[in-house]
Every structure is written in C-alpha cells, then in structure tokens.
C-alpha cells in the first residue's frame, strides 16, 4: 500500500536512465513493490514503453538494461539499482532501427507497424539484438523477436526492417 509504514525507508537507488544517472528514494519516489515498467511510465513519464499483458508475455514493455533487452514489467524498479536503462526515448531520432521501422514499405511485405502499440517493444528488442549481433540471419531475427506480440500482424515487415536496420548500420560504418 502506498505510504504504508512497513514500506517507508530512506534507502536510495540510482539508475542511469537514457545516459543520465538519477537517484530515487524508496518510499518517496517509488515503492519497493513497483515494477520497473510502472516506475518508468507513471512516475518518470517514459510512456514509449507500453504495459499490455503485465506478465511478460507480450514484449510491449521491452527496454534495454545493461545492453540486454528486458521485460520491464517483470523487473522491480528497485532491482534496477545501479543499472543502465535505455528506453525508446533514449534512442537518437535517426537511430537506424527507428528509421528502418518507419520506412518499411517495399512491395510484398506491408509496413512494419500499424497501430504502433507494440512497436517500441520491437524497436528495443531489435536494438539490443543488433548491438550484439550486427548481421543476424533471418532465423536469428525471428528467434530474437519471438517474445514480442504484434496483433496487427506486421511480423514479416518487421523482420525485413531488422535486416534493413542492419544494412543501415553497416552503411554508417558500424554500431552507432
């Protein structure tokens, strides 16, 4: 329960969010039971990530923590103490992954997004994949994105966008 005496504490945590270290007081800025997704969205205003299933089944809340794509609805905010978090707001506006998702439209595949609700999750999963594996095969792409649901069904175009993002990164001379 919010403000309940059992959870009040002067403990502080520090998170590096989108490049900036920030400190928060447990009990005041956040509660110990709060998920990272709720903390980022509701307390800090990073609404790019979405909470759709709230139990790790859809991938809409994906953010990057210490270089890995993670489901922020499955992590407590306090567990992120000392970690580096990147949300979609932290990506540069011309990030190759963002541009590839935005531009995807070639014949035979459709667009990489429709309603856009799942898109930030897919973008972040892709960003983490390409950080680790800049030239993934189609099988590796499909495997990496298999935890993200897109009910509009843009999977084929999403996979194409990932390959185009990889090409853009190569064209720019490597990882951004």
């Amino acid at each position: 329960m919010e403000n309940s005496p059992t959870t009040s504490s002067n403990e502080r945590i520090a998170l590096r969010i989108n490049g900036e270290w920030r400190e928060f007081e447990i009990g005041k800025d956040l509660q110990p039971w709060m998920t990272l997704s709720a903390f980022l969205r509701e307390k800090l205003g990073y609404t790019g990530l979405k909470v759709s299933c709230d139990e790790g089944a859809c991938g809409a809340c994906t953010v990057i923590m210490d270089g890995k794509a993670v489901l922020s609805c499955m992590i407590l905010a306090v567990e992120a103490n000392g970690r580096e978090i990147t949300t979609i707001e932290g990506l540069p506006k011309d990030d190759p992954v963002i541009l590839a998702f935005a531009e995807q439209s070639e014949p035979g595949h459709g667009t990489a997004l429709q309603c856009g609700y799942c898109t930030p999750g897919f973008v972040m999963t892709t960003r983490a994949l390409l950080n680790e594996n800049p030239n993934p095969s189609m099988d590796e792409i499909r495997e990496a994105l298999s935890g993200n649901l897109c009910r509009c069904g843009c999977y084929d175009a999403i996979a194409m966008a990932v390959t185009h993002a990889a090409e853009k990164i190569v064209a720019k001379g490597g990882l951004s």
Partner: protein
Amino acid sequence: MTIPYKPRVKRKFIGGYQPRIDGLEKAQGKPLYADDIINERNYPGLLYAKVLRCPYPRARILSMDTSKAEALKGVKAIVTYKDPNLKAMKPTNAGWTDAVDTVSYDGMMWGKFRDRNILGDYGTWAGDEVGVAIAAESEQIAEAALKLVEVEWEVLPYVMDPISAMKPGAPIIHPHIAPENVLPFDPVGGPDCFLSKGDTDQGFAQADVVVDMDTIHDNPTQGSLDPWCCMVQWEGEQLTVFSNSYATDQTRMHMSQMLDLPLHNIRVVSQYVGGQFGRADTGDQPFFIFTALLAKKAGRPVKFKHTRRDSFHDTRQPALYHCKVGAKKDGTITTLHFSSIGDIGAHADHSVFALKFAPAEISEVALAHIPNQKMESWAVYTNRIPGCMMRGVGNSQFNFIFGRMIDGLAEKLGMDPVDLAIKNFGHEWGSRPDPSLKAVLEIGAERIGWKEKRHKPGAGELIDGIKRRGVGFSLHPAWHAEWQEVRRGQVQVRITLLPDGTVTLDAPTVETGTGSNTCNVLGCAEALSFLGIEQKDITWVSTVDTDNGLRDCVQTDSAVSFLQSEVLVLAAKELKEKLINLAAEKLEVKSDLVDIVDGMIKAPGKSISVKDLLMKGDLVPLSVMVSRKPDSSRTGVPYIASFADVEVDTSTGKVEVLKLVIINDCGTVMYASGAEAQQIGGQVMAMGEALTEELIYDPIRGVPLNFNFVDYKMPTILDMPKVEPVLLEIWKGAGEYGACGIGEGTLTCSPRAIANAVYNAIGARVDEIPITPEKVLQALGRI
C-alpha cells in the same frame, strides 16, 4: 515471389508503395495512447476506479456491505447497485451500434435486447461487471477496497453451451428478453427463418447430388494490445471524457442519453488506439457511466482501465453451422439450406448481425443465382463471455461452412472446386462468370500451385514417413463497397489552406492502425494536385475531439480508407473555386478566366503563385468543409480469396502452414503498402483462429481458465508462414476511386482454406476450429 500490383489508373499519390504518414513517430514511440495521457501529471488529483466482477457464471447479489471499503484510507467514492440513481438508470447493452452510424438510446440497433444494467445485482458470466465500483487514490487501494466489500451471493444454475441452453429445463439467463434463451424476432434480424427463396424441398428432391455437412467455429478473441481505458472529469455541469474509444460521437451520445446531459456539455476526445479488430471500444460501454458517477461523487477526475484479464471481454461469436446443398450433375447449385446456432454468450450485443444479417447479405450477392435458398438461425444465450464482432461480423463463421460446402460438393461431383465456384457465384447485378471472382481464384490457384500440388484427399506423397501435404482455398464476396456504407450518413471533412500554401486536413477518424490516415493524406494530395503540393505539406489532425464540430468517421467496416478520400475530391473542387474567386478579385479579372495549375494562378497576361496571393492577403486561412452521404449506387461487390499450402504431421497431429496466398480485389488500391500490411497482418488472427486460439472454460465451475496472453495462444513471428499478398483492381464501385474496404476480409477465408488443405493432405475432415493436434489425431482415428 514479390509481384507489385498494377494500378488500373496511374496516379501521383493514391495507390503507392510508401511509408505510413505516422511511421516515424510510431517507430520513435511518440504517439500518446489513452493510458499514456491519463495520469496524474496531466490530470492532477486523478483517482483510479475498479469494478466488481461476478466470480460465478451466474449469480445474484443478495446483500452487500461496503463499510469496510469506505473506511479504507485513500478510498474517495463508492457507487453501488443500491444507489437510487443507479437503480433508476435505463437498462442498456454494450453495443448500441456497430459504430458505422451514431445512434440514440431509442435508435440503438438491438433495442429489444437491452440485457445489461449499469452495476446491476445480476451477473451472467464470470467477468460481468456488477454491484459496486470504487474510486481511490491508487489502483492498488481501489483493488484492496473491492476485496473489503462483503457480498452475499445467490449462486445460480448456469449453462455453458447453446445446445444445452435450448433444452427444456435449462436455466433461463435473461427471462424478460428470451424466455427460452433463444433471442426472439427483432426488426433488424427478422424471424428464425430469415431468408426463404424458391422451394428448397422441391429443389433437393430434384437435385442429382445432395451433400450435408456441419462445422463449428469456436471463439477466438480480438486480443488488442491496448486495454480499454477512460478518464472522466466534471467541471460544474461540463463533462470531459478522454478515452481510447474509437467512436467519439457515439461516446458523447451514450453519455448524454444515459446521464441526461445536453450534448454540448460533453466533450469527448480520443486519439491513437492500439488496435481495433472489430470490437474496440465504441463508447457505449457501461464503464463510462459508472466512471462518470464516481467522478461526480468524488469531485475529482477518475480513470478506469481494464487489466489484461478484463480485456477478454468479447469474442468472435462461436457458431455451429449445418449446410445441405443440392446440385445438378454439371455442377449447377440449385438449392442451399443453411442453419446455424450461435453461442452469443451472456449478452446479446450484435449477435444477430453475425448470425442473420451477414449471411442474408451474401445471399444477395454471391448466391444471387441460386434459385432455392433457406437460411435459419437461433441466437442462444449462455453463461460465457459475450461474442459478436471481430474483424468482420459473422462472415468468418459463414465462410467456414461456405468454403466447406464448395469443397465437399466439388468432391462429390468430381469437379475442381475452383471451377465449381466460378460456375455458380457472382452477384445480383452481374452475369457469370463474375470477372472479379474469376480473377481472384485463377490468380490464387496459380500462385499456390493448385494444379501441381492438389491431389485426391490423403493421396499425396508421404514425407519422412509421417507427413502429408495438401492445398485448399476459400472465397467470399467483399462487403465494404460504398453502397453498403449508406447507413453511415454524412461523411465530413475540412481542408484548411494556410497562408504559406500548406494544408491542415481534418478528416476525423480515430487512428487505430488501419492506415486510413495515410490514405486520407494521399487522397488530399491527389485532390489538391492543382496546388502543386507534396504529401509533406499536409498535416493530418490525429486528435478527434467532439468540440471540433465535424462528424467522426468511425474506423469500422474497413471503409474509411476510401470514404473520406471520395469526399476530399469534392472538398478540393470547392477550395479551388474559392481560391479562384479570391485571385479574380485580387488580379481584377473575371473568375472564369482564372485557372490554377501546379500552385500557380494564371489569368490572361497575369500570373501569381498561390502562396504569394495568400501571403500578401489578410492571412486568413481558406477553409472548406464538405459533407457527403455515401453513394448508394448498387455496384455489386468484388471478391476475396485465400489459398493455403499445409503440411500435417500425422504422428503428432500438428498442422504446419507452409504458405498462404491472400487475394483481395480492392476496386482501387488506395495505399499499397498499407493494404498489403492488412493482408499479411490479418493472417496472424487467421492462423490463431485456425490453429491455436481458443478460450478455455472449466466445465465444472463455469469460469474461464486462459484469459491471459500466456495461455491464450496468439501467433508470434515464429508461428507465421510466408504470406503472399495479391492486390487486384478488377471490379469498380461508384465515385472517383470506387474502392472497397479489405481489412476485415483479409482473414475471412483463411481458416477454411487451411481446413480444406488439411483435408486434402490427410483425407480426413476436421471441421471444428481451432484445428488442434488432438482434433487431427481424432480425425485420423489415432486417438
């Protein structure tokens, strides 16, 4: 193989392959959905509401004590079924309209089936909103307070399937509406036998071949990722609603009629919605009303949001179909008899639309040449989740038997089902063979490899000693030509030409992902080509606000992609006329001597750019608003088809779809990348519906077991086969573009195409979807 579609008329903007207008902002995570906006930063003092959900399949509240909840710190308002204003509230349903049109309380489509009360004392499915709603300082406090409400329930007998519900002695769920659980006659759906043409008894007696069959379409759910969410705020008598309803006018009408408030006192705002899929929030849900009552009582803004569990609130209505078909030896179908029993769940909603209207509509088009026809249906209440519309209304269920009929009859006659379909189906106003039908089937057959891959059922090559392959298809008439949209009423758009020559486009429709916003901008650029403008010069207004004054053209029937563009053609003409008059005045020439080409105003001996003319004027934007009712010219409809290539593992029963070819005759392709996205994307629902998605109930307790994304299996990227989209422009409707909506129809035929392909593969029928491994093994006699 990627073959881009070939446009009938080459246009500068309409029809192209290009990114969506909102592609970049969505890829950046920038659009704000309701849940992103409704927070304490934007609405200081925001409270959070929770509602009690009936824990039993059927139960009545005998008594309730909310005193402990009231005493909980942070609880700010409680409303219950005992409150006089709730007791006095009119009974409602949660589907006043399918949102094609805006309706009043008296004009709601299913006025005979008002089977919901706002926070009533009677729950008819495990999940029904009943009894009490609480607003508190946080969701957690509201949730905790609900648990402190003491309820004495009278747990009542219940029934979980329509056949049992029709039997004498079954519990009667809504006795005042359906004394035997079967919905009675209503003016929209008609009687049980809603269609009768010719003489079916005589037709069957005279037929050379008669075939009978049954199919069961079980219930998948829409699965939108964006949960329903609203915020209601009172400022005196002024009510503001922000939500992810995609029907703002209907939301306003609903609140006005239920709360007895004048329309001008209500402002409804919506913008991006994370998926529609046939049952997004049409704004006539009971939660808008109890949220408003809580907000009034607390004197603070209140948010109500569904959890993922709550988001399992609707399904594609399950239907059991029987078909008997009679034909001559040469393949001419003479007689058809369809009967269906629909499991409408606990609330009627638009069930009758699915069970009666949609098949009757097909009888008028595809089946128009068949002399003897009879259609009957019974819509039956059960204590399950309500079911009605889901990316189509009744079409998928009908297609599942229709495509079965074509395949089964062709087999009996020894014909190719493609030939059988082309021979028999067309539409009321045309001759056979129908060019659109012929094209979709012949191109589909070619792309899937129909002639090479098809074999006698179960007689194909055995692969790896256990696997068998097969091909199948199904077809359907499309149902979103302009003449079918007349009920929508006026479609309104406003174009505002700003002094620097750029344009603001008000084509109000809540963006749900369909791509109609891109179609609108392309249509606007096309219509304004005399200004020499580019797409980037046009801003599409993404927020739909009832205070804007324009009618909200709701994203339903897959038709907004062309309806607004047709109106934009007229609006552009009017704008050009205004501009010519302005130029004539400025240049001091007669207006009939002025023309505008590529942004230049030309008169004899004089020329000025549109931009210069405006920037040197009074800098008042030039605005035109045009209303137009959809053209009612009966132009028939185009056809759609799906072809499937599958591999079945006969040892495990698993069906692997190798390839789907989806063919849509669109009339005119408004935006090719968006249309292909719909075609490919629709197959995620189709694949789920055909193979993996089903709502599972505990038969003993009557409660759902898998209302979550872990256990309800929606396809992921790994589950999807190669999908080949084919766009055609064969048929043409009325108007400049004469297009037809395709979004719903992209998935209508696919489950049946897959089921027929499974039969072709293994030689045994599985006519109940989803086609799970268990059902395949049962069909093979293995279990």
